[in-house]
C-alpha cells in the first residue's frame, strides 16, 4: 500500500521512549559516566570522548540491536500509518474478535466447571510447610508433581463462603487423572473452521471462489506459492543448507568448512540482523544456541537471573490449578516422548515460573486474546481486587509443553532456557493458538496450507476430501505445535531456525503441504480418515529441508 501517511517522527519518538524506559538506558548512563571519568578525556572533547568510548565499549551494537528488536515487535498496522483503538490493534476484524471472545468464554467455563467438579480453587496460598517441601523438590518436580504434599491434606477455607455455593476443600493428593486438558488442537480447529463472516454473501462462505474445497471459510489475503518462493529464495535447491550439506558423509570442504568460518564471524558480530541473514540457511548445531539468542535479542544479566528467582518464589507461594494443567500436559506429552523425557524436570522449571510472569501480559497488546480475569476471594466484582488468571494470562492447552521441549536441547541453563522460551512465545508461539486475522496467525497459516495444497496437489486434495478426510484435520495439530513432538528433535530445531531467521511462521504450512506431497502415493490409496492418519502418523524419519525445497521449488 504505502499510500497512507508514514509517521517517522512518531516512530522516532516511540523508539526513544522505549529506549528510555528500558534497563538499557540506565546501563548506558552508567557507562557514559564511567567514560566521562576517564583521565584521558579532555573537558573540551567531553562529548566526543564519551561517545567514542561508548562505541568502543560495544554500545553502538547494543543500541542497534535494541532498536531492531523494538521495531520488530511493532504491530503491523504501524506500517500503514493507521492506529485504531487498542481493541482494533489486537484484532481489526469484528467477527474474528467475537470468535476469539466466544472461544475464551468457553475456556473459562470449562476451567470453572473443573474447579467446581473437583472442588478445588483456581489459586490458593501454600502453607509454609508445603512451600519448603516444594523448594527442596524444585529440581525434581517430575517425581511427585507440583501439587503433591506429603502427609495430611490442608484445608483452604474461603473468606466469604457465602459468595460461592461450595466450600473449596483443597485435596493435597489431588488425583491427576481428574485433571483434563482444557482444550486440544482438535477443539481449537473447530473454532477456526466454524468462523464465518456475517457480511459474506452465500457464495463467499463456501470458501473463496478460487479454492472451494477447504475447511476455512474466511478469506484472508495469504501468500501464494510464488510469493513464498520469493520469501524463501534461500531454500533454492542450488543453495547449500545447514542440515543437508554439512552431514558427515559430505566432504566438509564443499560447504561445512566455509560455513563454520562464516558462522564464527557472525557470532562475533553479535548483531541481530546479521545472525538472521546467516541463519536463513540454518544454524550449525554448535552455534545454534547463541545465534538464537542474538536473533531473539536475549542477553542475560544479573537482573534477569534475580527476576527468574523471583518468579520461582511466586510459584512456591501460590498453588494454581494451572500448575496441574501444565503438569498433566508434561506427563501426557514430554514424559512419554523418547526424545524429551529426560527434560521433564526442566519443563516444570520453565512452565511454572512462566505462568507467574506478568511480563507476558504485555503481549496481549498485539494478541487477539485477552487474559482471563478473576477477583480475590470474597471481593467479587470489586475492581481493586481484580486480578488476571493465571498471572501471565495464558491458559495452556494439550501440547503446550512441546513449545519448550526442543529448546532443552540447546540450553543447559534453566534461566537462559526460560528467557529464550519467553521471547519465542511472545514473538511467535502465541499466534498458533489465538483466533486472529494476522497474516502470521493460525487462521492465515491454515489458509496457506489449504490453498497451497489445493493448487499444488489438486487430485490429492480432492481424493482426501471425497473420503471424508479434510487435510487440515491432520495438519492443524502439526502447525499449532510448530511441529514439536512430530518431527525428530534435530529437524524441529532446523525448522525453528527458519522461523527465527525469516521472522515468520509461514514455513509451517509449507512444510505441512510438503509432507502431504511426499506421502501422496500412499495417501491416494486411503479410504478412511484413520487410514490417512496412519499414513501420516510417523514423521520422525522426515528431513525438513529437502521437503521444503520439494514443496517450493520442485515444480
Amino acid at each position, binding site marked *: 500500500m504505502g499510500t*497512507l*501517511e508514514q*509517521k517517522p*517522527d*512518531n516512530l*522516532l519518538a516511540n523508539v*526513544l521512549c522505549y529506549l528510555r*524506559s*528500558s*534497563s538499557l*538506558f*540506565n546501563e548506558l548512563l552508567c557507562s*557514559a559516566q564511567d567514560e*566521562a571519568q576517564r583521565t584521558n578525556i579532555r*573537558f*573540551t572533547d*567531553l*562529548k*566526543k570522548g564519551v561517545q567514542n568510548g561508548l562505541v568502543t565499549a560495544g554500545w553502538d551494537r547494543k543500541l542497534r540491536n535494541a532498536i531492531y528488536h523494538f521495531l520488530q515487535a511493532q504491530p503491523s498496522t504501524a506500517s*500503514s*500509518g*493507521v*492506529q*485504531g*483503538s487498542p481493541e*482494533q490493534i489486537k484484532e*481489526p*476484524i469484528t467477527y474474528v474478535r467475537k470468535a476469539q471472545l466466544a472461544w475464551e468464554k468457553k475456556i473459562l467455563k470449562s*476451567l*470453572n466447571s473443573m474447579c467446581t467438579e473437583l472442588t478445588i*480453587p*483456581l*489459586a*490458593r496460598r501454600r502453607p509454609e510447610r508445603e512451600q519448603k517441601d516444594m523448594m527442596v523438590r524444585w529440581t525434581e518436580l517430575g517425581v511427585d508433581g507440583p501439587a503433591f504434599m506429603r502427609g495430611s491434606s490442608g484445608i483452604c477455607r474461603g473468606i466469604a463462603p457465602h459468595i460461592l455455593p461450595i466450600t473449596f476443600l483443597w485435596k493435597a493428593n489431588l488425583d491427576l487423572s481428574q485433571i483434563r486438558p482444557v482444550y486440544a488442537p482438535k477443539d481449537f480447529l473447530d473454532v477456526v473452521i466454524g468462523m464465518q463472516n*456475517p*457480511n*459474506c*454473501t452465500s*457464495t*463467499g462462505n463456501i470458501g*473463496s471462489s478460487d479454492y472451494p474445497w477447504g475447511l476455512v471459510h*474466511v*478469506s*484472508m*489475503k495469504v501468500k501464494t506459492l510464488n510469493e513464498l518462493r520469493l520469501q524463501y529464495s534461500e531454500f533454492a535447491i542450488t543453495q547449500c543448507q545447514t542440515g543437508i550439506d554439512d552431514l558427515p558423509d559430505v566432504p566438509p570442504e564443499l560447504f561445512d568448512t566455509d560455513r563454520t568460518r562464516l558462522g564464527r564471524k557472525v557470532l562475533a558480530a553479535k548483531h541481530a540482523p546479521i545472525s538472521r541473514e546467516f541463519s536463513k540457511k540454518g544454524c550449525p548445531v554448535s552455534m545454534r544456541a547463541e545465534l538464537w539468542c542474538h536473533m531473539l535479542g536475549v542477553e542475560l544479566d544479573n537482573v534477569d537471573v534475580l*527476576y527468574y528467582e523471583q518468579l520461582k518464589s*511466586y510459584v512456591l507461594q*501460590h498453588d494454581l490449578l494451572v500448575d496441574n494443567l501444565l503438569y498433566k500436559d508434561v506427563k501426557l506429552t514430554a514424559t512419554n516422548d523418547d526424545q524429551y523425557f529426560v527434560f521433564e524436570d526442566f519443563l516444570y522449571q520453565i512452565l511454572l515460573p512462566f505462568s507467574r510472569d506478568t511480563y507476558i*501480559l504485555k503481549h496481549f497488546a498485539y494478541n487477539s486474546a485477552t487474559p482471563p480475569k*478473576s*477477583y*480475590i*476471594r470474597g471481593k*467479587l*466484582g470489586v475492581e481493586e*481486587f481484580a*486480578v*488476571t*488468571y493465571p*498471572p501471565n494470562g495464558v491458559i495452556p492447552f494439550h501440547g503446550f509443553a512441546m513449545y519448550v521441549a526442543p529448546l532443552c536441547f540447546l540450553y543447559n541453563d534453566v534461566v537462559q532456557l526460560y528467557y529464550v522460551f519467553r521471547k519465542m512465545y511472545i514473538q511467535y508461539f502465541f499466534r498458533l493458538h489465538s483466533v486472529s486475522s494476522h497474516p502470521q496467525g493460525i487462521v492465515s497459516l491454515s489458509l496457506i496450507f489449504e490453498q497451497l495444497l489445493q493448487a499444488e496437489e489438486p487430485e490429492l486434495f480432492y481424493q482426501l476430501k471425497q473420503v471424508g478426510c479434510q487435510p487440515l484435520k491432520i495438519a492443524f495439530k502439526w502447525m499449532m505445535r510448530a511441529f514439536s513432538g512430530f518431527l525428530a528433535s534435530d529437524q524441529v530445531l532446523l525448522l525453528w531456525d527458519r522461523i527465527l531467521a525469516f521472522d515468520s511462521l509461514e514455513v509451517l504450512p509449507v512444510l505441512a503441504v510438503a509432507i502431504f506431497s511426499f506421502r501422496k502415493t500412499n495417501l491416494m490409496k486411503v479410504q478412511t480418515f484413520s487410514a490417512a492418519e496412519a499414513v501420516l502418523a510417523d514423521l520422525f524419519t522426515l528431513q525438513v529441508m529437502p521437503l521444503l525445497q520439494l514443496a517450493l521449488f520442485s515444480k
Partner: protein
Amino acid sequence: MNDKPLSCNVKPAVSPTVDSRLGSQTGCKIIDITFPNVVNPEVGEIRFQNYYVAFLTVKAKIKLTEQTPREGPNDHGWRMVVRRLQLMPDPHTETGAQDCFVITRSQFVCELSQVVSLRLILQQPSPLWKDFSLEDLKLFKTSGGSRVPPLPSWFMEDDKPKANKKELEGVPDLDSLSTNLQQLWALAEEVSANQTEESLGRYEVDGCYDINLLAYS
C-alpha cells in the same frame, strides 16, 4: 488529539442508480457531507473505520473565489481530493476490511478550504461482501501528525564547534562545560523519574492471590 472533529452533516450512503432496478450490486456507494454550521470550512484530516470498502475516492465542492478561480467553462467547483485510494489490498479478502484509517493533508491532491461539501465515493468490486461502508467517519481541521512530543535537545544538538568563541589553550570552555554538565545532571534526573519497564509486575493484591473462579466479562 485536542482538536475537536468538525461539525458536519454526514448523509447516509446511497447507491447510484440509473433506474430503480439497480441496487447495491453496482459496487459503488456515495456519501455526501455538508457543513451547515461552519463558516469557510477547512478540512485537514479524514478518519474512519473501514467496513469492506476496497477503494475510496474523495471529491470536494468548493466555493469559487478569487483564490480558487473557475478552471473552465464547465467548472462547477468540484475538485479531486483523494483519487481511488486502495483500502483493501485484495478486495476479495479480509485484509484491511475493518482497519482504521487516517487520511491527512499530505495525501490530498488539493488544499481543502472554502469547502461547500465533500463527496466520498466508495467502491467494492468483489461480490463476496453483502455490504460495505465507512464507520466512525470524522473530519478534522488540522492534521494530527504534529502530536509527537518534541525530541530532547541533546538528541538534536549538532556537534559544530562554536567558531566565534575565543578559546584559551588548556582552559575548558566554561559555557560548553556547564552545558555538558547540566545535560548530564538532567539525564541523571530523568533516570530517577523514568521507572524502567522491566520492574517486577506483581499479580496478587496485598500478597493475596486466593481465587476460586474466573469472571465472565
